[in-house]
């Protein structure tokens, strides 16, 4: 049995210092974000982050139901992280489990720190995060897409929350773990920030890191987050640029 944090026989970093998918230690997986892809939702986004595929829909602000959940001074954020039964190798039993409830909570709280909830008392803002395919780092992929969907829904926000995970494999601190590295590595550290102020809004750790390693991992994540933040912005602008380009073609 392989326990988390135990040395396994699997080699995650080769002699050239490259990881099993050929990435360098500080290299991200390819990321593609698309905004506004669902017609019925108030806002939506789709993200492909390496092997992760996550769809996010945002509804609201709308009257919170049941009524006792309403807060008379601000809006409540209802985030729901859900993994599809077919998102992992072995069928995942559908429905919320301990893990999904925890992830929903931390994502909701991370988003709440950026949203002007006091503008909409007694309402709820519902964020549905559907993981269609999972390959480690889904909570951060979901959170990153959720902020894009919230902006697409026109919800007032201080800034767009963005995140990235770092971790430790074979004794090296690396960025953005994939499934194998997450399973057989020593630690996983998902982190999300508000890029403008660099405030940390989500930080979790699975496994063990020394104080110095933690610092290195956090710096790595922060740098990567700022790069991903730019991708989020490009995705939103692309939605409105498309029409403009078509028009330019027509005029030529």
């Amino acid at each position, binding site marked *: 049995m392989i326990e988390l944090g135990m040395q396994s026989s699997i080699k995650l970093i080769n002699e050239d210092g490259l990881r099993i998918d050929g990435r360098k230690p500080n290299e991200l997986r390819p990321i593609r974000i698309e905004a506004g892809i669902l017609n019925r939702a108030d806002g939506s986004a789709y993200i492909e982050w390496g092997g992760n595929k996550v769809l996010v829909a945002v509804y609201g602000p709308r009257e919170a139901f049941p009524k006792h959940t309403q807060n008379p001074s601000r809006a409540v954020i209802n985030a729901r992280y859900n993994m599809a039964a077919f998102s992992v190798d072995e069928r995942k039993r559908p429905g919320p489990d301990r893990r999904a409830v925890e992830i929903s909570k931390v994502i909701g709280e991370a988003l709440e720190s950026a949203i002007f909830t006091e503008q909409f008392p007694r309402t709820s803002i519902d964020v549905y995060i559907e993981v269609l395919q999972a390959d480690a780092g889904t909570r951060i992929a979901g959170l990153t897409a959720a902020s894009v969907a919230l*902006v697409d829904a026109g*919800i007032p926000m*201080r*800034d767009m929350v963005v995140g990235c995970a770092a971790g430790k494999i074979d004794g090296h601190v690396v960025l953005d773990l994939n499934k194998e590295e997450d399973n057989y590595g020593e630690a996983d550290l998902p982190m999300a920030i508000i890029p403008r102020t660099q405030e940390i809004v989500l930080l979790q750790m699975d496994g063990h890191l020394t104080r110095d390693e933690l610092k290195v991992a956090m710096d790595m994540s922060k740098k990567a987050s700022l790069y991903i933040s730019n991708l989020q912005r490009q995705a939103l*602008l692309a939605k409105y640029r498309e029409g403009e380009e078509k*028009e330019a073609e027509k005029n030529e």
Partner: protein
Amino acid sequence: MNKLDSERRIVLPGEEIDLNGMKQGNGIYHENGKYYAYQMGVVQTYNNYVNIIPLSGKYYPVRNDRVIAKVIDIAPSFWIMDIRGPYPGFLHINDTPWKSFDQDLSKILGVGDTVFAKVNEITESRQIWLSIKDAGLRKLEGGHIIMVQPTKVSRIIGKGGSMVNTIKELTGVKIQLGQNGVVWLDGQADKILVVRKVLRYIEKEAHTSGLTDRVRKMLEESR
């Protein structure tokens, strides 16, 4: 620099806004003496105010807005209406031209009926009271309803009503626009389909310039 930046600059939440000595308008917040956008939208200056005109978002009621509301429930002396906002609207019998005399309110307006109303009052606890006691306000009978994004309504109206008047003129369809993004249309079926196509086009192209001329061309072609 791309075309968007030069003319109608689109900003995103958290982007710093340079007020150039003007006042802080809608869609902007300040922190530590600096100003930032809180919504995705187009920057516009108006009357010495810098505003961000949002590109998306729900309808947020403002006093005296004209909206198209649908009855969703009936209480003893008022109707509860859906105005497509974060809160429901209320229409009291006293704010209508009808008299109740203890009769059933559903005989006047039933669930599912639509009215063209104005936002009369918004209380501190965000209760929205509607009224249909003003010129032009009425129960809407017949016709078709099309939903558009509330943020695009001002674009559909155009400068001084130029856009909506162009559409009315070239199609002969009666149009009633609600600020909440509900559009009521009445006229020939084929013309209504044309108007629907045009409304969708305006919605998609709302952030671009020279739209009225393009819509005019589109309508003339479809005739």
